[in-house]
């Protein structure tokens, strides 16, 4: 994407073309940079998914099974019987257009099929043709289409151009959730072997090693020990990471990116510093070494399969309850799916903070608490000492990640923490935060490099809002509570708002955390001086 400057990329025409949307056509060759590579044979075979083969979307022949139409038709029918959501969402849309300009991919591309309404119509037109009387009688007049190979190619292009962020569903008068529609479409495509590698490979890795990145247990341990040694070398702070420790009070689940790559690692170290200071009885797990769950972008069955290890490991280790780190889609799974799929959890206790005594009533059944809830409670009860001036080199804003925002409503907990740990906090414009927040455009498996043009396009609304506070308040750090964000926002910020860095919330917390017996802090977790060196005004 180096070839197009932001000034060029933003020349977007939001007015739709003349051509009727019902005529399908996607030229994959000319649209390189806006789609993802297909799932690799090895991963697909490992997961026993359908139709493993080498293929490319630019191929004329996608090597589908001979009866692919029948497979999809039957899969569709089965899901209509299993999900009220699908049935209602297929039948209630009135095409009022309220959602049309709410999608970050539409705003950044002007491609009309990125309007949520049309994304759903891609599926709905087939629904009408296959399953409704009016669709059968009226044909195109009634909005029905036959499922041709061209339509299927369009499905592949546009349902892997949705990050399942649910922003459109906030505005829909019937609550139609495009994420749900996309999930169904992806499940149907899986049945005939249409999927992308950035999803399939993490899924296969996760099934085998326990985490998306395929980090094996010895490396898991080495990575964590390395990060702790670095902390000791740089800041002189010692922490004892706990791994696979039976009988600990709390199982701590994190997204694997946090112990793998910057800037997530700073947040990871931040968690450990907090636990060390508290003397918390916790353990991480080299087996349940991933909170994230790319099953969410694959199929409901895969969600359940990958999520299985969480309660399984909690039971094996004999912990009382589970604490979860900063991750977006992980929290959608933990909050909306885990207990239903893999509960009940009669072997765990209702979470109670051993430090403050607070009982987390909102997690009474799943027994899993978000670390921002845990930490906000600590701060409120004055159980930790904070020196916010240690974050004075930062002028901070907060990006609400899609899932904590629109699947939980976790808005004030992270803000409470941020306002306690830094002195300079600024909100982005109100139509771009909280429940109206814009996606990083790299979620739901789309955060790969071959899709970079689409990521930067979809990142325009977030990037532009960030630029706004950068210009107005000199913001130089955007904090967030999502591991995918921490991987996908840096290139987005470099492109749309150069000079802004990305961090987790617990990185800033750890900077401000006053630990017992710590040496004087001169550097933050990134090894930068706590205060911007003041310009030397005297002549030398």
């Amino acid at each position, binding site marked *: 994407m180096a070839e197009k400057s932001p000034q060029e990329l933003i020349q977007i025409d939001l007015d739709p073309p003349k051509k009727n949307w019902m005529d399908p056509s996607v030229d994959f060759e000319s649209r390189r940079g806006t789609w993802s590579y297909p799932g690799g044979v090895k991963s697909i075979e490992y997961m026993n998914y359908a139709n493993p083969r080498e293929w490319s979307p630019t191929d004329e022949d996608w090597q589908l099974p001979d009866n692919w139409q029948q497979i999809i038709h039957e899969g569709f029918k089965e899901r209509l019987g299993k999900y009220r959501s699908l049935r209602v969402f297929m039948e209630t849309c009135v095409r009022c257009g309220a959602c049309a300009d709410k999608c970050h991919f539409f705003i950044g591309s002007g491609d009309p099929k990125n309007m949520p309404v049309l994304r759903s119509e891609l599926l709905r037109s087939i629904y009408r043709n296959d399953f409704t009387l009016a669709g059968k009688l009226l044909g195109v007049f009634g909005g029905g289409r036959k499922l041709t190979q061209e339509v299927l190619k369009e499905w592949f292009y546009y349902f892997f151009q949705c990050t399942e962020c649910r922003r459109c569903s906030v505005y829909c008068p019937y609550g139609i959730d495009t994420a749900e529609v996309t999930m169904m479409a992806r499940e149907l495509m899986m049945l005939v072997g249409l999927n992308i590698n950035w999803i399939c490979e993490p899924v296969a890795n996760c099934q085998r090693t326990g985490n998306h990145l395929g980090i094996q247990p010895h490396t898991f341990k080495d990575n964590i020990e390395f990060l702790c040694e670095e902390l000791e070398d740089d800041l002189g702070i010692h922490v004892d990471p706990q791994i696979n420790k039976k009988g600990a009070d709390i199982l701590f689940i994190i997204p694997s990116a946090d112990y793998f790559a910057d800037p997530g690692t700073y947040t990871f170290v931040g968690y450990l510093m907090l636990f060390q200071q508290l003397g918390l009885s916790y353990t991480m797990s080299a087996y349940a070494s991933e909170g994230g769950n790319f099953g969410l972008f694959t199929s409901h069955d895969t969600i359940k399969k990958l999520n299985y290890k969480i309660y*399984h490991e909690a039971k094996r280790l004999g912990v009382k309850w589970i604490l979860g780190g900063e991750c977006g889609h992980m929290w959608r799974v933990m909050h909306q799916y885990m207990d239903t799929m893999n509960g009940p959890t009669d072997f765990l206790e209702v979470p109670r903070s051993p430090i403050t005594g*607070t009982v987390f009533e909102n997690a009474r059944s*799943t027994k899993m608490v978000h670390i921002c809830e845990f930490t906000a409670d600590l701060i409120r009860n004055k159980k930790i000492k904070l020196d916010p001036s240690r974050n004075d080199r930062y002028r901070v804003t907060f990006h609400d990640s899609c899932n904590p925002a629109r699947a939980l409503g976790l808005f004030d907990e992270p803000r409470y923490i941020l306002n306690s740990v830094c002195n300079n906090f600024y909100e982005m414009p109100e139509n771009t935060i909280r429940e109206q927040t814009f996606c990083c455009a790299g979620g739901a498996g789309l955060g790969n490099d071959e899709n970079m043009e689409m990521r930067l396009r979809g990142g325009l609304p977030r990037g532009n809002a960030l630029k706004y506070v950068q210009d107005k308040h000199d913001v130089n750090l955007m904090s967030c509570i999502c591991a995918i964000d921490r991987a996908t926002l840096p290139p987005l910020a470099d492109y749309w708002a150069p000079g802004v860095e990305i961090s987790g919330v617990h990185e800033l917390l750890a900077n401000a955390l006053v630990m017992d017996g710590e040496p004087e802090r001169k550097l933050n977790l990134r090894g930068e001086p706590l205060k911007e060196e003041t310009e030397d005004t005297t002549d030398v």
Partner: protein
Amino acid sequence: MGALVSLVAVAVLALLAVTAVASDDLRLVFGAVIPGVAFAVFLVGIVARVIRWARAPVPFRIPTTAGQQKSLPWIKNSEFDNPSGFLGVMGRMFLEVLFFRSLFRNTRVELISDREKVNYIGTKYLWAAGMAFHWSMLIVVFRHFRFFVEPVPRVVEMVQVLDGFFKVGVPVIYATSVLLIVSLAYLLLRRLADAKVKYISLPTDYFALYLLLGIAISGFLMRHLEKVDIVNVKAAIAGWASFQLVTPEGVGALYFIHVFLVSVLLVYFPFSKLLHAPGVFLSPTRNLANNNRAKRHINPWNPPIVGHTYAEWEEEFHDKLVASGFVLDKE
């Protein structure tokens, strides 16, 4: 194109109804038989559809949260945008169904490419037109009870008096009659004039609007232009309300157009997007509480899927675990 096809379709339907004036037999068919059948199809169709929805399971609790969750006691939650229980859900549904709360949030994106600015501007036109149309429609339908029930219920009379508050014209022009036609006209023009909305519109979207406009305008003209004989109308309607076929007498073409288009609407309703009316009550992103972690939701078809167990994992990585000094379950 779709707009034109639909206009022609509704016009043909209206003309079809006009033929009824000519013959006694057709008057009976268009004035009594068709409306009766249409009403039956409407009732059965809607009930069947809602039952089919209601019978489809809700495997997961997936509310869209549009406000602060209920977590720690000192953090104020927004109960109507992110309900924590039954009462909150009732509140959310009440605001959604009666006041279109989600639509009220609507914004319009404005992209100023030269200045590299993206703005989001609150816009209430669609919400206002939607509210005006649906509420007027409700009141207009309610007012029609004076044709169905004898004596006319007090509350219907009261609504009529309020609706005719402005006392313009003889007979009085009801505010909702005007609002109904104006809001429908706005929704139609918006569909034609807004490039994005035009692009996403299906022929059936126009069909519903033309049909409703045809009904509203023919009804309005009947009252204010033709001034049909209410006594005759009432006699005809009383007929089919008591399951007797009475040929409507002393009424003109407008009456037949009106009644026939209403019949078409009733038949069309259960098979079309007009189902959004009952659908909104059953939408899983709106009618469920966000208490997932506090109260376990049951999936009636939860498949028996087991993941990679710890034992399998330990076996696969056994040597590496030993070399890294992990304590194993199985030595």
